[in-house]
């Protein structure tokens, strides 16, 4: 079992070992979350590496990653546990055939762990080999308020109650990471129990580092051009600005096409990798892409 890192620097190094480049601010919050055993609430635009940090942490600490993807209408049956009805049905019929359909016996046998289907939240409360798991509750803004209220309870005591079995308490609290794209405001009560961090778009230097870590095959010149272009693009009036994930995707696309340097033609051919709305793509066709590329190049020149 890997011990929790002892300092903020250690967290940074740990994550860097997983090719996750993170700033001092994010490392500080992650360190605190590990040290204080509090959930970490990451909010930010799509594609800024919120989900990735959970994966990197789990891999670096050698813990199991348990992911709960939120969606509208997510309920306890999908998030915590469910009974295996088909198996229960068979058990009843088998008991009947054997002539022993005793009421108390049935209760005792039907609602045991054998018939329990564990969902992510319950799994996270169970002891795991290698230590407490990393529980990733992804895109919590997609679910609704009743589920938030439920999470509130589960995350403050790290326990869930199953009426038929009793309370399951985590022997060691899991490392909880919640992410939100802010499509709606998550309730303050939930946020208050967490350490909050807004994940912003990275600076030029940081994004270059990220690209080096994630797409090491890309040449220095191409990486710099790609990042400069994307950074410049984020200043444009777009409906959806490209995230870091898009930068990495785009660099990989360009590598697959054996592109050595950007040109307006290449950009307009591969624009679908960075911009995902037709309005935005239409804006960038033709001269506009060339203008941004020229500006990006100019910003690179002094360096």
């Amino acid at each position, binding site marked *: 079992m890997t011990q929790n890192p002892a*300092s*903020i620097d250690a967290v940074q190094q740990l994550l860097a070992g997983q090719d996750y480049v993170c700033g*001092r*601010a994010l490392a*500080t*919050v992650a*360190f*605190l979350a590990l*040290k*204080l055993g*509090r959930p970490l609430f990451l*909010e930010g635009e799509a594609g800024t590496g919120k989900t990735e940090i959970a994966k990197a942490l789990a891999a670096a600490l050698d813990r199991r990653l348990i992911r709960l993807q939120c*969606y*509208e*209408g997510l*309920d306890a*049956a999908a998030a915590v546990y*469910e*009974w295996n*009805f088909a198996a*229960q049905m068979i058990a*009843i019929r088998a*008991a*009947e055939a054997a002539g022993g*359909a*005793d*009421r108390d016996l*049935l*209760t005792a046998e*039907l609602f045991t762990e054998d018939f329990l289907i564990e969902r992510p939240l319950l799994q996270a409360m169970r002891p795991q080999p290698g230590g407490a798991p990393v529980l990733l509750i992804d895109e919590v*803004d*997609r679910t*609704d308020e*009743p589920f938030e209220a439920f999470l509130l309870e589960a995350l403050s005591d790290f326990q869930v109650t199953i009426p038929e079995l009793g309370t399951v308490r985590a022997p060691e609290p899991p490392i909880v990471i919640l992410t939100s*794209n*802010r*499509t*709606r*405001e998550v309730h*303050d009560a939930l*946020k*208050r129990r967490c*350490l*909050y*961090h*807004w994940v912003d778009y990275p600076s030029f230097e940081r994004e270059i580092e990220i690209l080096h870590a994630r797409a090491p095959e890309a040449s220095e010149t191409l990486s710099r051009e790609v990042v400069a272009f994307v950074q410049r693009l984020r200043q444009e*009036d*777009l*409906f959806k600005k490209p995230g870091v994930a898009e930068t990495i995707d785009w660099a990989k696309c360009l590598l697959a096409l054996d592109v050595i340097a950007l040109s307006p033609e290449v950009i307009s051919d591969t624009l679908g990798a960075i911009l995902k709305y037709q*309005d935005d793509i239409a804006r960038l066709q033709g001269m506009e892409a060339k203008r941004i590329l020229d500006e990006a190049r100019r910003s690179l020149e002094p360096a």
Partner: protein
Amino acid sequence: MPAYPDLTLPEDGKLVHNITHFARALRRAGLPIGPGRVQTAIEAVAAAGFTEKADFYWVLHACFVNRPEEREIFHQTFRLFWRDPRYMEHMMALLLPAMRGVQEEERAAEAARRAAEALLADAEMPPAPETLESDEEETRIEIDATATASAEERLRQLDFEQMTVAEMAAAKRMLARLALPVKPLPTRRLRPDSHGHRPDWRRTFRASLRTGGEITAIARRRPATRWPALVVLCDISGSMAAYSRMVLHFVHAVANRQGQGWAKVHAFTFGTRLTNITRHLRRRDVDAALAAAGREAQDWQGGTRIGESVHAFNRDWSRRVMAQGAVVLLITDGLDRGAPADLAREMERLRLSARRVVWINPLLRWDGFAPRAQGVRAMLPHVDTLRAGHSIASLEALAEAISDPQDHGEKARLLAALAGDAPGG
């Protein structure tokens, strides 16, 4: 200001003291920080150690900040406070009485209280005026961020204080009658219901245990329901002057009728720029709410730039307030001076992200209204329904329009008129 509970914290020198003071300063600046969070912050600082100023900054940031908007307030407070805590206190003390005196108490004493008593007689009295620091702080920042006014913008603030007797009476009547019966939407969550269409195996089994494993009846479930959210975009330009105030009364009434429909009401005003007034409308007192909104929106009775305003909404707010299938209420006369193509594009984007776009146009009250203005022509194809909204009666009819997906209001008639006109224009 509430009394602060005495914290029993380990006294280690000045640091604990200073963090507590800092938390109080933040609280005064409008961040909702309770003693629990102060405790967390102290634990966090103890855990992270006190080595670098930047680390210290982020440690406190993680504990005290909960929303992106709060980052700037935190930053400024941190910068000021850790330079000299006394300076901060001193400034706050200076600001406090001045702001209260000018902005809240006078108003509340005269117009606001009276209106509250008159309008919300059945409800409880509005809570004691909250401190205004947060408003002040955020307002300043927002103005900073948007101080890109062009020369043609006529910045004029509307004074809501002088409500005429007639207006007041009308508002009262409206409040009394206004019960927006919105139809709840089915969600994907299920709840027990004996007439539901989906079996509830878990309850069925639990019940069957009582009869020794024999299933006698199948328990059922059906989708639960929830209320939709409402987004109001209200035109406050010169051509809507007589109208927008009334409409804001209406919006305030809707926003403050909790449990009556709408899950959340987000309100925006626009003339030449888009302003979010949701926060201000939350005040119970209609006068205070509209006065605050009036201070916030800088473009009362100026020109109109519908295209740009809708664009700003799409870019900055649509993903945040429309995610849960919101109904959009667009209140404007459609007299726009911008390029029709841009307006049409933004309206299309708006409609794509909303459950329904309901356009209320006060000009419709004239029988012979035809879609001549280019703005109206551009917008018409991209709304679900078009309605008049010049009177209280028409606002009431609106409730049905919003909840009925088949309702198209006057849209079909006007689209036909538009098609007839098209070759010429």
